[in-house]
């Protein structure tokens, strides 16, 4: 098996959980479906399943940790649910640009608008999405319409025991004036 073919298949095995599960269960069948001959299948199947899974998991966690750095508020409101949603998202998206973690975080926020999470969490994710779009895109102004007054969450003053934000239409605004950024709510 050439190194190129092996790397093509390994890259998919590392990043695609469904393919990995299927290959570990039925290497010959899945290998053949992906164009590998018997010898090639054996070569890859020789990698210990435990090592393969551990490495793939470590890649997932590294990716999640990088995304969390961009989304501190979404991480806070989603708490334990974040991992599960990111796992689902990560199976369908492979960032391609040089700013891969930024791209990943932005796309994850967009995907959360269609996820089964609370309306408040959707609002927080939308807020961080718009913020990333503003800083990443260099627009003069970005306005984000929100259904909740999330100012306390944004100011990091709301702890998990605190009163949850009230439903109220709010607009978060980011503005560039003389190369300085202003951010406020109206």
């Amino acid at each position, binding site marked *: 098996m*050439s*190194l*190129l073919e*092996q*790397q*093509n298949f*390994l*890259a*998919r095995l*590392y*990043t695609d959980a469904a393919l990995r599960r299927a290959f570990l269960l039925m290497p010959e069948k899945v290998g053949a479906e992906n164009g590998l001959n018997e010898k090639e299948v054996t*070569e890859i199947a*020789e*990698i*210990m399943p435990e*090592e*393969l899974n*551990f*490495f793939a998991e*470590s*890649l997932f966690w*590294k*990716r999640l*940790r990088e995304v969390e750095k961009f989304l501190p508020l979404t991480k806070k409101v989603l708490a334990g649910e974040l991992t599960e949603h990111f796992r689902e998202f990560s199976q369908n998206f*492979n*960032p*391609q*640009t*040089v*700013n*891969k973690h930024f791209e990943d975080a932005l796309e994850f926020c967009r995907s959360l608008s269609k996820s089964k999470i609370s309306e408040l969490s959707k609002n927080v994710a939308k807020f961080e999405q718009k913020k990333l779009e503003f800083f990443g895109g*260099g627009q003069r102004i970005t306005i984000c319409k929100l259904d909740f007054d999330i100012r306390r969450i944004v100011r990091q003053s709301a702890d998990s025991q605190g009163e949850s934000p009230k439903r109220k239409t709010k607009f978060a605004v980011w503005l560039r004036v003389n*190369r300085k950024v202003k951010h406020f709510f109206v």
Partner: protein
Amino acid sequence: MSEDRNQKQNTQKSLGAGIGFREQFRGSVFLNQDKIDFLEITTDHYLDAKPDKLGALKLLKEHFPLIPHSLELSLGSAEGIDEEYLEKVAEIVEFIKPPWFSDHLCFTRSGGVKIGHLAPVPYTKEAVRVFVKNIAQVKSRIKTPLILENITYLVRFPSSEMPESEFIKTILEETDCGLLLDVTNLYINSQNFGFCWRKFLDEIPLERVVQLHFVGSNRHGKRLIDAHANKTEREIWEVFAEVCKRSEIKGAVLERDADFPPFEEILEELETARGLMKIQNLKKVSAV
């Protein structure tokens, strides 16, 4: 190693002990300029950067010697080098004008899939040829010396034809590159797969070590991992000290990426590293 390169790297003064620059450190590095000898910057953070980000890089450059460290040259990719990425790295290296720059002995993409992190390659003659070809392409574009970093690996390939040490040695010799020896990665691999790091040091060309990386390891289940989120432990300092005794290193970088401690702890680690590097120098003086 060609005589020119050999002379160039041997006459290069040691840069001392530095840190991998992270945005979280920005304020602290400027406040503690006298305690940080140099910074390693992640090239990828400045590719396609907007003018204010490049301005921030320029400011760093005015205050510290900088060493660029890239993540995605994917020197072990059999499909070859991504020329667009190479061009962007080249622009940053040309802007910084460092004594060397670095990337890893790994592959990070194949067939349109980005793996997202550093993945090992099987230690085969074919893989050596791939590295040699890709590195030649990088060298023809970027004239600054490229040094190569050893990675941690969690998967092993039974199809490997040689041990990791021989694989690294062969690539360094065939490409005439220096080594960025990550002592933490070496320690982690030795613990996860039960080999002796001292023996590994015996087997690699230590005269090619240019720079070190160090940070603490993290335990995940029964394995150690390179989360870059811990204080350097005694066992890793032991590897560090041993390399300093046996090699003329030109700089050491603390790579902390998460669970950031108070900055004093970072500075203490640099002081420890500097101490170990000075022992080497003092020994040389007394030997003369």
